[in-house]
């Protein structure tokens, strides 16, 4: 079964075609088909997993490929490779996809283009699965672009809203800039090794097939793609705007799966990164900066989805840090746990939005725990997992990352600890302001109620996962489920995990500082106390609120530089190339004609004179030539 894991991608692919073509005419616009599809790939995943584990470590990675195209010496094979990293990704994608599909049935009820929403969701799942299954960079790139397309379509689902269209455009173009880098990197690899296959490339690089500088440059290009997709500084701008899309989409695409594709790519290529000089340090620095930066910005956001978005960016930064420190398992583990609790938080936010009839500004919420107990409870679990409460999922994975960074240097460790405190801080702020205290807008609160089972069940399931997912790190837990050991051992056969109680203490201390700081600030506060900062340091607050002017800077760059250049080129094309070059030739001809026409005097004697002169000239010429 593992070698036929491509079926996982094929099922939603077919579902997409069916739903795009006939979805509108199906009963209930085909939402049952979407859920069925998600459920079946969830089930199929377990078949793949069982088979994969049965085959044993010696058979990994499981490969299967076919000849795709060939021109001369240029051969291209397409296929899948299933290894532990892939399995982790498959687990995340199939689980979250199923939850989101179920949740969407409730969330999207009565929304426009219901059928189209589900169809594109299947397209996304298909491409995302293809992305993680791909055994070669080209197929990965294909899937990479397709998930980008699905993301574009889903962000722009409410295209009647101008802001949604702008957000979709921004997401597509920003990631596209990164994709340019990725494609260049991929082709540079091919240029050096003659193959797109990731394993073969790794082998070639290990044999030293690519020179140091060149390898570094190539990896930087690859990293560019990863940064674009995973919204790392300075490509992070699209992700908060992407919250214009339906909330379940934010959970699936912009929290759990697509945005971690960059992390996945770096993890997948980590053996190559390790050989590429300082490339890993770049990864680490990018991750650190992102984690800190978005932690700060999240603190000044008032839209619950925006807070979550910046939190996601920040957590992706954590993952990059782990990878930059060279720890695949730490990065992947955080990816794994983060997927569950962040999907939970987003879906929880979705439940809030539905429950309050489309209110998502924290200033209008508050005190919801009474009205929506299930949502509040699950949201609390998710928040605590994100903040890193022992022994929830987020705690273990963050612990792993801190552990990983220890080896890099105290500065990195220190900065990451600050980022962890900020995580706890803004998470607390989010929860307190949304669910606790007194309702800040009675009108909103009075109409709020718990959404139906179809939406709360996924929340409960994900809350459960947020609690237990962290235990995968333990040897015994993994063994009991049939894995060769804990998460780290499964991923790259490392040593069994042992709890470092000192680090646990430190982590807990970070959590306590952040949480209590947040609680002290916002507990029962009718007023957002971040306004305290606004009064104390208005310039700093404004800078944070304006996201350190990144968006303004980009806007300026696009409006003034890019479009200005475009106007210049258009002008040049019209006036220089066309009006001067082409029409100029025409008018020169015209003008010459204008000058020469004056020879046509209309006076017979002039013509006669011309004839006579011509005859004499001809006679003289023929005399001179012919003798």
């Amino acid at each position, binding site marked *: 079964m593992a070698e036929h894991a491509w079926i996982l991608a094929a099922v939603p692919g077919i579902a997409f075609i069916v739903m795009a073509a006939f979805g509108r005419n199906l009963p209930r616009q085909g939402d049952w088909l979407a859920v069925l599809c998600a459920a079946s790939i969830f089930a199929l995943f377990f078949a793949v997993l069982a088979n994969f584990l049965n085959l044993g470590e010696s058979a990994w990675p499981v490969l299967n490929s076919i000849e795709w195209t060939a021109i001369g010496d240029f051969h291209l094979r397409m296929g899948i490779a299933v290894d532990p990293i892939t399995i982790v990704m498959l687990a995340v994608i199939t689980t979250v996809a199923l939850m989101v599909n179920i949740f969407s049935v409730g969330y999207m009820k009565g929304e426009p283009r219901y059928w189209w929403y589900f169809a594109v969701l299947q397209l996304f799942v298909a491409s995302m699965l293809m992305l993680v299954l791909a055994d070669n960079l080209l197929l990965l790139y294909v899937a990479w672009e397709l998930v980008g397309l699905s993301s574009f379509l889903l962000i722009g689902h409410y295209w009647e809203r101008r802001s949604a269209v702008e957000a979709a455009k921004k997401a597509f173009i920003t990631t596209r800039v990164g994709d340019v880098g990725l494609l260049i990197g991929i082709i540079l690899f091919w240029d050096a090794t003659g193959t797109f296959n990731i394993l073969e490339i790794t082998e070639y690089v290990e044999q030293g097939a690519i020179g140091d500088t060149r390898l570094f440059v190539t990896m930087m290009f690859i990293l560019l793609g990863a940064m674009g997709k995973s919204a790392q500084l300075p490509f992070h701008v699209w992700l908060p705007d992407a919250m214009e899309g339906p909330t379940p989409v934010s959970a699936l695409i912009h929290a759990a799966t697509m945005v971690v594709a960059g992390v996945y790519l770096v993890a997948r290529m980590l053996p190559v990164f390790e050989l590429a000089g300082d490339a890993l340090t770049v990864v680490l620095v990018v991750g650190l900066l992102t984690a800190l930066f978005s932690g700060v910005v999240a603190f000044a956001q008032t839209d619950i989805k925006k807070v979550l978005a910046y939190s996601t960016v920040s957590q992706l930064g954590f993952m990059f840090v782990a990878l930059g420190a060279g720890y695949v398992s730490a990065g992947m583990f955080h990816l794994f746990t983060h997927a569950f609790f962040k999907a939970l938080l987003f879906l929880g936010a979705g439940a809030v939005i539905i429950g309050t009839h489309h209110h998502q500004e924290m200033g209008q919420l508050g005190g919801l725990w009474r009205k929506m107990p299930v949502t509040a409870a699950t949201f609390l679990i998710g928040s605590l997992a994100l903040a890193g409460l022992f022994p929830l999922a987020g705690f273990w994975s963050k612990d792993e990352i801190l552990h990983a960074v220890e080896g890099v240097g105290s500065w990195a460790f220190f900065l990451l600890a600050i980022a962890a405190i900020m995580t706890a801080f803004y998470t607390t702020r989010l929860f307190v302001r949304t669910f606790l205290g007194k309702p800040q807008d009675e009108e909103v609160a009075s109409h709020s109620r718990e959404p139906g089972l179809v939406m709360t069940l996924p929340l409960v399931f994900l809350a459960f996962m947020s609690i237990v997912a962290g235990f995968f790190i333990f040897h015994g837990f993994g063994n009991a489920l049939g894995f060769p050991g804990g998460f780290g051992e499964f991923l790259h056969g490392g040593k069994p995990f042992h709890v470092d109680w000192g680090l646990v203490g430190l982590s807990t201390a970070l959590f306590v500082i952040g949480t209590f700081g947040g609680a002290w600030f916002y507990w029962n506060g009718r007023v957002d106390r971040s306004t305290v900062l606004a009064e104390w340091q208005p310039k700093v607050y404004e800078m944070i609120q304006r996201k350190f002017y990144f968006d303004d800077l980009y806007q300026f760059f696009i409006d003034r530089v890019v479009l200005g250049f475009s106007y210049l080129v258009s002008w040049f094309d019209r006036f220089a190339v066309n009006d001067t070059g082409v029409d100029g030739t025409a008018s020169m001809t015209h003008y010459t004609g204008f000058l020469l026409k004056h020879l046509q005097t209309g006076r017979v*004697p*002039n013509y006669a*004179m011309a004839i*006579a*002169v011509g*005859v*004499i000239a001809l*006679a*003289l010429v023929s*005399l001179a030539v012919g003798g």
Partner: protein
Amino acid sequence: MTTEVLWWIFAVAIVAVSAGVVFARTVIHSAIFLILSLAGVGAMYLFLTIEFIALVQFLIYGGAVTVLILLALMLTRMASSGEPEPTTGVQAPFGALVALGLMATLIGVAVSTAWPGDLGQNAVAVSIETIGEAMFQDFGAPFMITGALLLVAFIGAIVIARQEDDE
């Protein structure tokens, strides 16, 4: 010897009257000079002992064409207008230059080329029969076409010069 003297006299006279045609101040004088010039060329044909063509020259040119020209002069009333305007156009000096250049070229070529043999060595031979045969046998088709041309020109002249009803 006498022939040559006579020839020279005629040649000079032809040149003189031809010059008269183009330089005369009044058009009627030009016309009279033209008649003389045409007659002189006719005489040249006699020197060449080709009487037929000389006859044609006298008849058609000396008679018909000249009469036609005089008629035209009278119809356009230029003969008696006294010509207050200049008789030559602005490009007359250039015309003179070109004409002189042409003359130099023609004379130069004629003189510099060697003409062996003699002229009129077969003077006896050109009879009217020979010309007739040539005209009606060898050049039958052109002859007929020329006839057609004359007819067309004749009709055309009438049509063009006709007084129209509305004028």
